[in-house]
Structure formats: structure tokens, C-alpha cells
């Protein structure tokens, strides 16, 4: 009887040992496989993006058109209101432009400064948007090191809306970190309706899921709904006066020294197909 028991025990021990060896072998192969993938990470990702780019861009376009169609059906009533308010805003802006042009014409010295202002002209590279990783707020664009792109370059839209900066560059593709990424910290200037008041500065932080918020604004600062946020160029990463967002909701807590304000960002990944990379801005 003891002989039978010890026989079955050693068989079960051998079986467990076999399983352990198999699992260990699998882990070793997996480790080697993952190691090789990481060794050629840049090349693998670059070729993957290159091969998938035509399909991704097609899906991106189809997605944009489809969501636009459904959005227009859902927001038909609001579209009319938005249209009216945009017309009024447009007219106000035309009046301001006229006044500014008149002031410019009268003061020749300012014209010369403006003409020589290096902020006016940047070297831009046009890039197509290929995809978005919504979990990390990173978009991929179809320009890379072969096109003169390097890490840290600002990325904007045609309307000078700030999207983010180049995070990682491959041969033919790049990853752009949006300003809504949790790692993003951006110094901004708040332009309010009272032109005589000194400008207010604050920090825009990414809140992930394509959201941003304004932080470190002094509690006594007067921030109103719909105030516009633009880049201040204080941190040296982005040129000044790029559009960032609009104040959505203010909330003051007298117990805290700073306000935290909800911002509606101007960048909209749903509607963009092309972006511009500023290749020659370095403070």
C-alpha cells in the first residue's frame, strides 16, 4: 500500500514539475520575443504606421463625415442660434480690425516693428492626422524625421489653435502630445473684455480625455465666462498668442489662494484632418 501511495505522489510531483518547466519555458520565450520587439520598436512602429496610414486616413475621413452628419441632425436647432451669434461676433471683430488698421497706418514706427517681429513668420510643415490614442491624448501625424520634424516642436491648426507638441519622432511618423495630456503644463494669458486691465496669467493643465483646466490663477483676478486663453510664450515651448481655449465656468473658493477654472479647449480632433508643425521656433 505504501508503495502505491509513494508511486502516485511521485507521479503528481513529476506532473507539477513538468507544468512548471513548461510555464518557465513560455515565459523565457515571451521575454525574448518582447525584448526583440523593443529592440526594433522604432522600425516596427514606423512601418506599421506607414502601411496602415492610407486605411487610417480613410477611416478618419469617414468617421469625421459620419459624426458630422449625425451631429447636424441632433444639433439642428442649436446650429441656427450659433450661426446668429457668430455673425454678430464677426461684425464686432471687423469693427476692431478696422480700428487697428487705422492706428497702424497712423504710426509708421509700429509698422516697422511688426514687420520685423520674428513671431509673425514661422516655417510650417503640413501634416495629415492619422489617428488618436484616446487613452493617452496622443495623435499620430504622417511626418517624421525625414521631413525635418524633431521632438518638442509646436503643433497648430490653420486657425492658429494650439494642439500640442511633438512627443516622439519616427522616420515617417510622429506622435503629438495634445495639451489635454496629463503631463502637459502650459503658461497662458487670459484676454478679457476689459482691455484697460493688466493681463492675467495662469497655467493650463491637461485633464486627459481631451479636457483641460486653468489653474494657479490668483483668487482676486477677475475672470469671466467666455474669456479667451492664449499662449504667453513664458515657458519657451510655444510661440505667443496661439489660441488655447475659452473660459467655461468659474468657481471661486475664498479658502484657497488660487482659482481652478473649467476651460473649453479650441482644439477639436473630430474636425481636423491636417495640422501644421512649427519647425523653427526655439526660444
Amino acid at each position, binding site marked *: 500500500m505504501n508503495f502505491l501511495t509513494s508511486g502516485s505522489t511521485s507521479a503528481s510531483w513529476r506532473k507539477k514539475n513538468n507544468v512548471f518547466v513548461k510555464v518557465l519555458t513560455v515565459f523565457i520565450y515571451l521575454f525574448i*520575443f518582447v525584448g526583440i520587439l*523593443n529592440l526594433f520598436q522604432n522600425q516596427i512602429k514606423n512601418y506599421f504606421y506607414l502601411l496602415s496610414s492610407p486605411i487610417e486616413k480613410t477611416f478618419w475621413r469617414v468617421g*469625421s463625415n459620419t459624426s458630422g452628419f449625425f451631429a447636424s441632425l441632433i444639433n439642428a436647432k442649436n446650429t441656427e442660434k450659433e450661426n446668429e451669434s457668430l455673425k454678430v461676433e464677426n461684425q464686432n471683430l471687423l469693427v476692431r480690425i478696422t480700428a487697428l488698421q487705422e492706428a497702424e497706418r497712423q504710426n509708421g514706427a509700429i509698422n516697422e516693428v511688426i514687420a520685423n517681429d520674428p513671431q509673425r513668420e514661422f516655417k510650417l510643415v503640413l501634416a495629415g492626422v492619422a489617428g488618436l490614442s484616446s*487613452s493617452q491624448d496622443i495623435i499620430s501625424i504622417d511626418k517624421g524625421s525625414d521631413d525635418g520634424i524633431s521632438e518638442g516642436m509646436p503643433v497648430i491648426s490653420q486657425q492658429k489653435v494650439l494642439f500640442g507638441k511633438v512627443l516622439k519622432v519616427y522616420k515617417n511618423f510622429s506622435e503629438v502630445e495634445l495639451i489635454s495630456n496629463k503631463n502637459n503644463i502650459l503658461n497662458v494669458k487670459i484676454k478679457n473684455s476689459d482691455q484697460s486691465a493688466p493681463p492675467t496669467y495662469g497655467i493650463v493643465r491637461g485633464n486627459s480625455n481631451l479636457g483641460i483646466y486653468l489653474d494657479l490663477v490668483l483668487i482676486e483676478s477677475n475672470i469671466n465666462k467666455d474669456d479667451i486663453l492664449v499662449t504667453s510664450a513664458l515657458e519657451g515651448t510655444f510661440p505667443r498668442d496661439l489660441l488655447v481655449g475659452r473660459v467655461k465656468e468659474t468657481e471661486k473658493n475664498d479658502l484657497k489662494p488660487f482659482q481652478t477654472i473649467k476651460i473649453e479647449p479650441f482644439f477639436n480632433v473630430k474636425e481636423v484632418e491636417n495640422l501644421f508643425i512649427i519647425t523653427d521656433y526655439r526660444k
Partner: protein
Amino acid sequence: MWLKYLVITLLFYFFAILQNSFLIHFNVFGITPNFILIFYFLLLYFSPYGGPALGWENSFYAIIAGFFLDVFLHSYFGVSIISLLITMFLVKKALQLLWNRGDEHTLLYFIPLFAVYLVIYDAFLNIILFFSSPSFVNFNANWTFIITLVYNMAFALLGFYICKKFNLFKDLDRQLKLF
């Protein structure tokens, strides 16, 4: 036999492209469904009874799905692969307990198991990211996770009914032979 693996690999690739380009335009508060995770869970849930928790087939699917997730992740390769392998092991162990009770593939088990699967995957992914790329850890234990869960669950339930209706994955080799 090999056709099954090719078709599933192509489907994972298709879902990877779809969720990073098409579905972005249908995001809810910046959240999009993860079709790769949903498809992989359906493969696990409707796979034939029995087999070890770390079976070759499921591990192969985990590696393929993890590879396509890692391509779009700003981190090292292997982060999603390892997270999926660990999650697969735990989910298969849970499924084996259900099979031992003789239960069929019911919705009653599908919903909580899928919710737990998402939580476990997200947790392990962020743990591994904490060691490999700490600045990209993004574990949101707030209302955005509820939205992620509900949005993914909606598509997972759709997948569940399709798989149940057409008896998908039960005998995939035979089904593919029809083509």
C-alpha cells in the same frame, strides 16, 4: 486550422485601426470603446469548454491583441501583452469555475465578468506603466471610468448576442471551411 489564426489576427488589426481613427469621432467625454479588448474577451468567453487557463491558443490571441494595443501606446512593447496574459489567466480561472457548475454562457455571468476583466486589465496596465513609463499612468478611478465601462459594455453586449445567435467561436475551424 491556420486560417482561423490569420482571420483573427486580421480582425484584431482591423479593430486597432478602427478604434484609433473612426471611433475617435464618436467619443463620449473623450472616451472611445476598445474593440480589441471586447473581441478578445468574447474569444475567451465563448471558447470551448476545458483546457488550461494559460492555453496556447488564448496566449497567442493575447500576444496578438497586446501587440496591436502596444503599437498605439506610447510605451514599450509588452505592456499590453503582459497585462492581457495576466487578465486572461484570471478570467479563464473564473470561467472554469462556472463550467464546473455546468452553466451555459449566460448574460448573468457575462456582464460582471466583463466589468471585472476591464478593471483588472486597466489596473495591470497602469501598474506596468508605472514601472516602464511613469508619466503615462492614467488610472481614472472616477466618473470617467463609469463611462468607459458603460460604453464598452454596450458593444460587448452586442458582440455577446451576435456570438450567441450565430454560435460563433464554438467550432471556428469548421465555420471557416465554409468559405
